[in-house]
């Protein structure tokens, strides 16, 4: 239909991702490389396309350069459309002045005109913080069946973990009867995944009311959801039991990459029925050299591997020279690991150079006090000089 979209997605991609430190110093979190040839935002974007949603507003604010450039006209995700497609939506100036997005709700409020231009029945709200494969259309069908105003995707988490999340308390018909943000004594184990579907006409009014109330936070979790609950709107929880992982911290980013190598963890990038799309690099195939040893790893195109790689994710265009060893690590696009260098339990950012004989990170086994140990991180475009040592847990954001 050329004058209407049933469902439009709004993807909140403006977050700084401050807990990723050096990796998000000059790019927004959703632009951080993930899984050998993707960026985090490829997951929600591909999910949209695979779910039949062809109109996506990407709300950007923090360091948008890399992200804007990456999304471009949306073509790699088939989101270059005459009507619809991917649109980057930065904050803008109006006759009344200019303002930043003051919160998740305000970000959508400022783009009401964008959503209205597609005249949708429903809006799905997404974030660029998670790795998962999910059919939003199945969730939308659930939303329609339940005749809900808001549907919140939830995951049944372990009770001891529940206090890390926003928890939905539901009745036996999946109706949300209460909501608690990071409760000390959780009354339920249904953790919000930060994925919402709203009936647009209703949400639109709540956004306007929220904007007009100066005392309220301009945030979905703090204002819109509680307001809807208080008003007795029909809100339901949609249980998703697939793989879903937050990649907001260095540890979880590292783990989520490693999960791709674990055959027992249900996230399959090789499934032809739910392809993950990305902006593909223009590079020749990877070359594995005569002296190379590669096991239990994922390696992308354009790499040149002459060293030893074990249990690692190596992104496109990486060089690992002879005698270098990379284990339990993530090496992001274009980086070079020189002769004899050792990289263990580490994340090396884009286009960095690890000098020969340098040693990045360490295995956890040697540490009596596990708190002294952690993933070592080298940021983007960093030079590590020959024979330098980067201790575990260290985060390098300047040349050394």
């Amino acid at each position, binding site marked *: 239909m050329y004058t209407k979209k049933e469902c439009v997605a709004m993807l909140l991609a403006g977050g700084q991702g401050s807990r990723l430190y050096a990796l998000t110093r000059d790019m927004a979190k959703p632009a951080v490389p993930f899984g050998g040839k993707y960026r985090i935002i490829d997951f929600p974007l591909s999910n949209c396309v695979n779910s039949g949603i062809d109109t996506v507003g990407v709300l950007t604010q923090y360091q948008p350069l890399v992200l804007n450039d990456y999304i471009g006209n949306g073509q*790699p995700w088939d989101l270059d459309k005459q009507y619809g497609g991917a649109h980057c939506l930065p904050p803008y100036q109006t006759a009344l002045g200019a303002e930043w997005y003051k919160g998740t709700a305000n970000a959508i409020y400022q783009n009401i005109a964008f959503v209205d231009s597609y005249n949708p029945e429903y809006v799905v709200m997404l974030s660029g913080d998670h790795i998962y494969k999910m059919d939003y259309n199945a969730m939308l069908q659930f939303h329609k069946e339940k005749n809900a105003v808001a549907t919140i995707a939830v995951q049944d988490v372990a009770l001891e973990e529940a206090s890390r999340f926003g928890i939905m308390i539901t009745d036996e018909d999946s109706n949300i009867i209460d909501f608690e943000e990071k409760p000390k004594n959780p009354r339920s184990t249904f953790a919000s995944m930060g994925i919402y579907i709203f009936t647009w006409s209703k949400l639109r009014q709540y956004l306007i009311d929220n904007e007009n109330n100066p005392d309220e936070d301009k945030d979905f979790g703090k204002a819109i959801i509680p307001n809807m609950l208080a008003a007795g709107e029909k809100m339901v929880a949609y249980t998703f039991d697939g793989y879903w992982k937050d990649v907001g911290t260095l540890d979880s980013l590292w783990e989520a990459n490693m999960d791709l190598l674990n055959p027992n963890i249900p996230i399959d990038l090789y499934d032809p029925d739910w392809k993950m799309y990305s902006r593909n690099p223009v590079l*020749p195939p990877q070359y594995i050299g005569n002296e190379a040893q590669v096991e239990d*790893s994922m390696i992308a195109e354009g790499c040149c591997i002459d060293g030893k790689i074990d249990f690692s994710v190596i992104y*496109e265009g990486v060089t690992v020279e002879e005698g270098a060893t990379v284990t339990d690590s993530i090496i992001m696009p274009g980086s070079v690991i020189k002769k004899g260098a050792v990289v263990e339990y580490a994340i090396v950012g884009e286009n960095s150079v690890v000098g020969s004989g340098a040693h990045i990170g360490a295995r956890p086994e040697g540490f009596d006090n596990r708190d002294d140990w952690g993933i070592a991180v080298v940021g983007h475009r960093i030079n590590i000089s020959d024979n330098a040592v980067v201790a575990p847990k260290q985060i390098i954001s300047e040349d050394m």
Partner: protein
Amino acid sequence: MSLNKKVLGIIFANMHENTVSELTRERTMGSVMFGGRYRLIDFTLSNMSNSGIDEVGVITKSNYQSLLDHLGSGREWDLARKNSGLHLLPPFSNTSNGMYRGRLEALYGIWDFMKVSDADYVIMSDCDVVATMDYNPALEQHIATGADITVIYAQEKLTLESAAHSTVLGIDTEGRVNNVYIRPAISGECDISLNQYILSKEFLKNLVADAKAKGVYSFEESILQGKCREFKIMGYKHEGYFSKITSIKSYYDANMVLLNSDNRNRLFPESAPVYTKIKDNPPAKFAIGAKVKNSLIADGCIIEGTVENSILFRGAKVGKGSVVKDSIIMQDSVIGKNCHVSCIITDKIVNISDQKILTGSANYPIYIGKGAQI
């Protein structure tokens, strides 16, 4: 292009198919797979695009379904343009022209397309040469020397076998082509045509009209050879990397030499990317126990066994306990468990079931056709 001259690229996608008849049974020469993720036409098309040519016509004749599928709108080569861009030119016959027999007839058949182009010059290329080149200096030389035709050539050591599929040029000290030997029975160091020509559109138009009137159709025989003294035909020497495919053996070798990093760096310089159709494969996966040496591996491969001195195209799979040596495994082909294969070329989507042993030899690799189940 740099000289502010508008140049039209014309690619002949079907020429030389008989040299690798196994590979071209269901596809054009241009759509023959190469180098782990490419098709032969990608090299010429990328060269044109990287040289600043934004209008390219691809002439096909038969078996062109895979070619059309590969090229699509030409977006991957930056040739999906509002004006100019990529034009696919399958044969269409009317009462006066049937299926073309040679370049001149093919060009006559598409002259309506040529006519509307506002190009000053035409660069024609076949798909049998794998090379990275910038056409700008060749065009500069063409204009500076006032040549009627410029032939791009390179030096190669010919064998009797490869000479039988080559055109050898005699070039004088001024760079002028004064002799043309088509498929000569010679061997040794020769200047061979890379089947890429530069000429002005006006000159080409006259050649094509004249050929139609006289009923001749072979550009090489009637023009290059027949008129090499009458016209000013200049050679432009390509000094960079190239390989010319003249047989299944030379196809195999042209792939295998890419395992040498020097060759690879010359064919894939950072300054001139080679574009191809995007398949959105995930990165290649190496399982526990995988052993890979001296091989080119494309995205989407899953390797559980041993791979040595081989080229694996996108989505190829090698099962546990299998050994793949000196082989070319094309897109989405699967080698089962505990197989042992060496010196084989599998076409696309070949399935070799568990425990099979297949051994070819480097001078006669075994070719397994598209979709075969073994």
